[in-house]
């Protein structure tokens, strides 16, 4: 065994992946070859190094990706945790029934006192134009709730702490700065002032499907009817990008931009003038091939006939055009010039028309229909196809066409058709 035999097996030896007899042979060689021992050491060092350096560390990116996946699966985890800087407001926690009752109560009060002027307090944030209270439901933004809460002199926004383990939401009132926390009213909103010593901080971002950016809504809230607002509430998402975010392959940016990853060249078929940009079987570029055929056509159209063959051969050799390219070209010419579909093929009792050729880039590059030379070009195209094609039914159909021309003495291409038939050996 020469040295290369062992050298090439060092890698597999390091992985214990050799058959037993080869493993032993390499071991014996290693005992006497310093070069191979050094190579083995390097491979083992690489493996160890990969164990250390090949691991991706923690990153905010991965946490965001995990959240994105959870959102998509509908198992998103969001918890609102109050941060109390001073004493918590007396009243402690609210139980589920108290919270539900307070929500209902505020909703009713908001509806019936919607015309009452809202009294501004020190704790109330800046007032906005009053809006109709109908249709406002739990989960509306801070602004909405403030504007429609009864004029009890209290401007309170409350947040609900969801204790997911206990399943009991707590409604704790507080005076909030403008935030993205979902608000639910509490019964405290109808009575006592709220201390300004409580703030809420989200431990995780609020799922963006619940948006408080109503100003982005196409509905003018100040003029919306309750039914319109109800319909809006029932929507699964407020904006298009909310829907997009739930789809894989969509990224959203902080400036509300949305990036949708498009198809890759290998996944999406691009059509240029109805022609695929890639040959799906061979992978070659259809466009490039057609451009070569275009060049061939230019050569042929400039030739005076006598040296056409020579020039064509030279061109084919230089451009590395395959005979199949030439056949495709002439097929394109034929199909684009044909006024009527190809003759039907009779199958049994039914006549099945052959499928119409789809217009490809080759066809689009074919000479345009010209009343003066169209028939001649069509005839030549059929002749070329008959010479190049190996498809017997195709050959049969084009020869039939040539025969029809040859048998029609009044046709200007009559003699040319006969010459073609002679060339093809058809009588």
């Amino acid at each position, binding site marked *: 065994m020469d040295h290369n035999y062992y050298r090439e097996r060092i890698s597999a030896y390091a992985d214990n992946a050799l058959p037993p007899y080869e493993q032993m042979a390499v071991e014996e060689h290693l005992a006497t070859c310093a070069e191979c021992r050094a190579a083995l050491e*390097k491979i083992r060092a*690489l493996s160890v190094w990969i164990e250390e350096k090949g*691991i991706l560390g923690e990153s905010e*990116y991965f946490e965001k990706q995990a959240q994105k996946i959870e959102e998509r699966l509908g198992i998103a985890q969001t918890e609102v945790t109050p941060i109390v800087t001073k004493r918590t407001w007396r009243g402690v926690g609210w139980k589920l029934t108290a919270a539900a009752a307070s929500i209902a109560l505020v909703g009713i009060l908001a509806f019936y006192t919607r015309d009452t002027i809202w009294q501004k307090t020190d704790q109330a944030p800046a007032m906005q134009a009053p809006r109709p209270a109908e249709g406002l439901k739990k989960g509306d933004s801070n602004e909405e709730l403030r504007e429609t809460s009864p004029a009890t002199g209290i401007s309170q926004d409350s947040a609900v702490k969801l204790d997911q383990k206990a399943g009991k939401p707590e409604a704790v009132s507080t005076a909030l700065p403008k935030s993205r926390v979902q608000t639910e009213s509490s019964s405290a909103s109808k009575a006592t002032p709220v201390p300004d010593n409580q703030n809420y901080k989200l431990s995780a971002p609020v799922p963006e499907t619940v948006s408080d950016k109503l100003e982005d809504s196409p509905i003018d809230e100040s003029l919306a009817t309750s039914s319109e607002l109800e319909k809006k509430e029932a929507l699964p998402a407020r904006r298009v990008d909310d829907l997009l975010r739930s789809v*894989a392959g969509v990224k959203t940016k902080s400036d509300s931009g949305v990036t949708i*990853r498009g198809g890759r060249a290998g996944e999406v078929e691009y059509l240029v003038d109805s022609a695929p940009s890639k040959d799906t079987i061979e992978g070659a570029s259809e466009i490039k091939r057609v451009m070569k055929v275009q060049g061939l056509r230019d050569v042929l159209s400039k030739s005076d006939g006598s040296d056409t063959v020579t020039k064509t051969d030279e061109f084919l050799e230089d451009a590395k055009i395959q005979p199949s390219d030439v056949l495709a070209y002439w097929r394109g010419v034929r199909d684009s010039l044909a006024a009527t579909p190809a003759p039907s093929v009779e199958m049994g009792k039914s006549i099945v028309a052959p499928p119409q050729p789809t217009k490809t880039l080759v066809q689009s590059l074919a000479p345009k229909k010209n009343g003066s030379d169209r028939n001649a070009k069509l005839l030549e195209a059929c002749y070329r196809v008959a010479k190049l094609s190996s498809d017997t039914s195709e050959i049969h159909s084009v020869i039939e066409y040539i025969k029809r021309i040859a048998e029609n003495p009044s046709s200007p291409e009559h003699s040319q058709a006969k010459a073609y038939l002679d060339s093809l050996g058809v009588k």
Partner: protein
Amino acid sequence: MEEKAPEPVTQSGTDPEEQKLIEASQIGDGRAFGRLIRLHQKRLFRFAYGITGSFDQAEDIVQETFVKAYSAIGTFRLGLAFYPWLSTIARNLTYNQIARDERKESLEQMAEGGFDPESTELGPLEKLLSDEAQSRFFGAVMALPSKYRSVFVLRHFEDMDYNEISMYLKVPPGTVDSRLYRARQMLVEQLKDLL
């Protein structure tokens, strides 16, 4: 979309904590599955990125893998390691990408080894790497020709043996050996000052 779960690979040394998370996920605990996502997503991402060479595609593959896993979690057999099962799903998703990449590479590139350490920028991956050495490592891996890189990734990132790689890529084990040998040669050459 096919929901049938792949056959889990039999492995020993399963983590009891992970088993609890799987069990909880099977009875509908979303938070438990969220923890499973966080446990395994980095490794899955590394594999998907190594195979596809595309940050975006790797993201998609990781996301789709967990979506499929979640829908089929009920069929997972407790007592087996979770990552190999996830990896099987991810590999099925990336297999087509491997075939596409290998067709794209030119023969000339393969004949010359096609190794150009400067040819592949890490792009967004750079932000996930901790130091220069790690950047050089991943840069060198991504610069490998895709035929070599896929074998390397399957061996070193997924701990697959030669037979498993051979079956997955549908190439003879000898081809796996030679490609891995070439990949390692190239990497050793590129990273010799770090090893």
